[in-house]
């Protein structure tokens, strides 16, 4: 039979971007070890609502680590204690009976709180808007196999392209920098012949947008890489900087 536990929760409540936030506490009995972390929060909310208390709001959709909606900071760690998973893929068997768990939203000036654990990450959309694409119109594409792409390059591009846009890298960074997110998109597109053409403008526009959104600079703490649920490598950041400097000095 599966194990049941008692968990002591402390979670962030905040009514809106300008409201003052505070912690609320609740002890949840009968937490099954096979529950996912978000299912544990569902159960918490069911209990709260039946007691006529306000549920805690949190973001999610796919619940399988691919959409990037969930973004909880659990006991100070973005996405919780397990490496290489998003919060929705974390299971309660990673905890023990009587554990205390604190849940917070990612804290960054560029991610204002909407409600409780839900934040506004539209800054990420604007960074992509600034240049995270290949400028090709529908219908204007050449035959797919007309440009061969080295397998190794394609695989590298793919690895960077798997970023789920969750923002854990920002949450973990002492400077709240979005360099890993931005660098990953630049590296993905620059590795491919299709993306190579716009390389210079892309890096300048995206990096400038990132600064404008209020994200901090990168000081090589590498905390981002450690929490990234898909393992984006910080080499992306080094490449982005090199390209940026080159582009700016070219006077481009």
């Amino acid at each position, binding site marked *: 039979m599966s194990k049941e536990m008692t968990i002591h929760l402390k979670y962030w409540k905040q009514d809106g971007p300008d409201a003052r936030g505070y912690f609320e506490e609740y002890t949840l009995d009968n937490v099954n070890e096979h529950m*996912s972390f978000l299912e544990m929060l569902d159960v918490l909310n069911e209990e709260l609502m039946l007691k006529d208390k306000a549920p805690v709001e949190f973001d999610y959709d*796919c619940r399988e680590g691919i959409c990037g909606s969930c973004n909880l900071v659990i006991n100070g760690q973005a996405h919780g204690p397990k490496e290489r998973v998003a919060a929705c893929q974390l299971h309660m068997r990673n905890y023990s009976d009587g554990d205390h768990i604190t849940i917070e939203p990612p804290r960054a000036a560029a991610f204002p709180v909407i409600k409780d654990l839900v934040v506004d990450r539209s800054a990420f959309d604007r960074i992509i808007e600034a240049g995270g694409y290949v400028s090709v119109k529908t219908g204007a*594409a050449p035959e797919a196999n007309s440009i061969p792409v080295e*397998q190794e390059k394609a695989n590298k591009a793919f690895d960077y392209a798997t970023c789920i846009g969750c923002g854990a890298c920002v949450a973990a960074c002492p400077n709240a920098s979005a360099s890993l997110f931005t660098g990953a998109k630049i590296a993905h597109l620059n590795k491919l012949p*299709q993306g190579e053409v716009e390389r210079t403008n892309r890096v300048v526009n995206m990096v400038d947008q990132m600064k404008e959104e209020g994200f901090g600079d990168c000081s090589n703490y590498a905390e981002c890489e450690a929490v990234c649920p898909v393992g984006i490598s910080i080499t992306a950041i080094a490449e982005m900087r090199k390209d940026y400097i080159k582009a700016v000095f070219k006077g481009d």
Partner: protein
Amino acid sequence: MSLDSKVPEGPLTEKWSKHLQDIKLVAPNNKRKYEVIVVGTGLAGGAAAASFAEMGYNVRSFCIQDSARRAHSIAAQGGINAAKNYPNDGDSIWRLFYDTIKGGDYRSREANVYRLAQVSNEIIDQAVAQGVPFAREYGGQLANRSFGGAQVSRTFYAKGQTGQQLLLGAYQAMMRQVHKGNIKYHPRHEMLELVVIDGQAKGIITRDLVSGELKRWEADAVVLATGGYGNVFYLSTNAKNSNVTAAWRAHKKGAYFANPCYVQVHPTCIPVSGDYQSKLTLMSESLRNDGRVWVPKKKGDKRHPNDIPDEERYYYLEERYPSFGNLVPRDVASRNAKNVCDDGYGVGETGLAVYLDFRDAIKRDGKEAVEARYGNLFEMYENIAGDNPYKQPMRIYPAVHYTMGGLWVDYNLMSNIPGLFVAGEANFSDHGANRLGASALMQGLSDGYFVLPYTIGNYLADQAPGKRYGTDHGAFVEAENEAQGQIDKLLNVNGDRTIIDFHRSLGKIVWDKIGIARNEEDLKSAIEEIRELREEFWQNVKVPGDKNNYNKYLEFAGRVADFFELAELMAEDALNRDESAGCHLREEHQTEEGEALRNDEDYSFVAAWEYGGVNGKLEETLHKENLEFEFVELKQRSYK
């Protein structure tokens, strides 16, 4: 009266090219005068919004998530089909067309499916040009694999994240247009009503999910690309926000809902572990290439699977289907798993699971070989289920995965309401009674990139450019009042059962009685049970908080209310279709081998339902679109 599908005349192979020559165009300097609303940013909606904007139309895009990039399409794993025939294994447009028609058990429209196969190749070109990092061969060419029982290798893929990569391609194309100002972008906005003026779709009402504000949007045409309705079952492989609300509210405004009973169940999902379960996770069916499916021969055998000797194991697929064995199609595998569990042979804590065993594959090929093939899937399984599939068999169970039914559309993807277009999983168009693996991504992108951009022009060309009724028009006011009324009603019930509790109970009825296998008696009792539970929902649901705020449970309450009505229509449609076809198995109609037995004489039609009101019971009128097969011969499937 048979519905007019507006399929162009002429030979199958020339219909689309001829249609493209015949349809009306909008002059370039006029395009700026048209506004098009696109609801949904999945593959279908994202591709459509980007393409419309590139052509010069003014586009407004809406989605529920905080970013367009998070639409449910992101989760598709396996791949996307196209008839490129790169491996030179005999594939062709005709073969892809034929496989899709046959796979759909001859319940889809020939002309649409042929067009889908035709444009499939352009989709791959488009995606590659956008920088989608598909898998490649050593020589740098695109790689293919075979998928879902096809005899050719026509599936393009990006590891297990094909949907993610294709969606990011469409999203990036969209964001480029947002930057240029051609798309006005509204994430965290849920469409609650369609606005119809003089019989034409002219706008929508949305709720801003952050502020709670209801807003009116006017346009010259509305595209719904809002995904499938699998979450009516409560548990499914769909993302939590997937819903039927946009489609259903359009249905209530007059759009016909087609074939709602066609639902696909996927055989290899991780089973339910308890009541708290919130969704089900799919595992690639490629696992069935090497895994052997079995249950203990003794009912309720509680021994550890490794302690059960071979002669006491029932390898039921291998025994029942000697030539296909563990590789029978999705519906056959799902049905058999449910049957053995219903008969008491299921395994695991809930008894709702069967074993998928890799012991023999590991013995035969070695652990390394198995790890190379399925390593990431095994890891995912272990993370969720908590045990190690290298050491003991996986437990699997079928789960609802895809809905073939949806809003009825003609060849131009326009519903019976002029100006309302429907794309992707939200329409009923191309998969008949069963969808083949790797074909949903193809259809969504085909609709969005290569069909709608042309067919919408054909409609807009007849609309006076720049003609506006204004959002003060009575139809807007009324639609907003309806949306507001529903929200207030939900908040005012103040009962004592939670929304999830109701949704779970509804899902159980739908799964047990309108699920993998159906029969008349069950369907009739399902209708009664749904009505009773719906009644109770409106008396006793508990919706927390208020409306002028971020309130996820209020969103869900509205969606569950719509599922309650859809569920009744699904039962009615399943009852009406007194034959088996594809995923719709009526127990009264099966071959001796337990295969779906069609009745082409009486049921070779699309069932399109017209809404007539809900008053205790749901009122719907049936319209039929007769399916004519000019180019293929109808056959009975057999996998023995």
